């Protein structure tokens, strides 16, 4: 990925680079093994059942 070669190279005012925190990085991929307790899925995401218990009106 050569992003810079696609840009115009004009001499512009310089500011020292800063590394700022924008938010967080969360890994929820292992929560299923570490935080059980819901109905069928961990946490509060209860209710996933693979679908065979779809109520009337929901086509499978």
């Amino acid at each position, binding site marked *: 990925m050569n992003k810079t070669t696609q840009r115009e190279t004009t001499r512009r005012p*310089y500011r020292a680079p800063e590394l700022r925190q924008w938010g967080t990085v969360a890994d929820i991929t292992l929560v299923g093994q570490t935080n059980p307790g819901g109905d069928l899925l961990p946490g509060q995401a209860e209710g996933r059942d693979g679908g*065979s218990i779809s109520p009337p009106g929901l086509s499978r």
Partner: protein
Amino acid sequence: MDRMPLHLDAITLLDGRHGLERLLAFTRQADAEAALRALAQGIQANPLWLALGAVRLVGRARPAPVLALFGTFSPAQRLQLQDLSAQLDELLTAHRYVDYHDAERAAERLAEALSRRYGSETLSRLRFTAIPRGGWIVLGMLAYLLDLRPDQLVAPGRDPLERRADDEGLVVVDDCALSGLRFQQFLSQCDAARVIFCPLYANPALCRAIEAAEPRVEACLHAMDLQDVAPARFGKAYPQWLAERRARIGDSGYWCGIAEYVAFAWCEPQTRYWNTETERFEAGWNLLPPALSLKRRIAASRLHAARGGTGEPDVELLDHHAHGPLIVADGVLWTEIDSAVALARLSAEPSGSAPCLRLEETAADMWWALLAHGSLEGAEAELVARYAVPGETLRRDLAGFVAQLQGHGILACR
């Protein structure tokens, strides 16, 4: 996502620990890029995806396939993504995809089981129906295999179907039974006195439970076993979950287990989740790539039309080929949002303590230059021509910037 949000998080959906082979097997693709695109299509072919709003799906195919979502998420959306991630984890650990050829082989086993138990004479007097819609595909195959007459095939709910079937028995066919509730619902509207339930795929314990619970069900015959994944899913908490499940399920099901994932060339079983805001079950995530299943393909087409899209997956796949000594570390993803660069090193911290970084102006330019050249020298040569700054200042700042990125585990030395 075109405008720069005040707050931006990255949520890992695929962290690479499953490896490439499992992803290729699930998506039925030949290479990592195509597999990630197919997976992205599967994720985006969901109403829940549309409800996420402005988000950015970013992936990297090498060395191990990773996928993350950049955006601003409500607590409810985080729970939905947790559900998505848990499903992805299970699908890539074990999944079963049944194409039409597999279905025919399974239908042959079902036909043999019916023939063994009842013989051709009795079978010729039975009537057959199916639970819509996948059950009809299986019944169509069974009709050929058992040489059923057209008058043996009956539609459910057509009076006097049930009364006619009373004497000889009614065979109810479905593609799968996961909890048995769909069959239970079917049975509640059926007056047949003698029923034989034939799901193509089911857990044997579910079949035995149906036989025990329903006096009208003479037999529950299935062709292929589905494993119970609940013990593996809940681990040490399985007994607790089982007790809660038994207390909660009441009369609404037969079996306290969770059948392994199965999907068919015609449909992927619907998933549901409990929406804590609306306090009702709503459609959950379905992840099978649309190209693998008729129903998914139709759903994806409708969703694309609804959002005015092209049908192509909206995913950024990063391909980093640096020639110099500086490389982007494994598991690091980045994306450009309104001229700023968001950087995320996929973390093993569920609590979300690792920072999602923002680079703007000079920092963003330095990032792109480092990516392009893979060295301090190359980046410096490019940047010094662009900025009105003494070379020594730029060199010092660039070195400090790289050191900071290395400290965050974003850049590494080859």
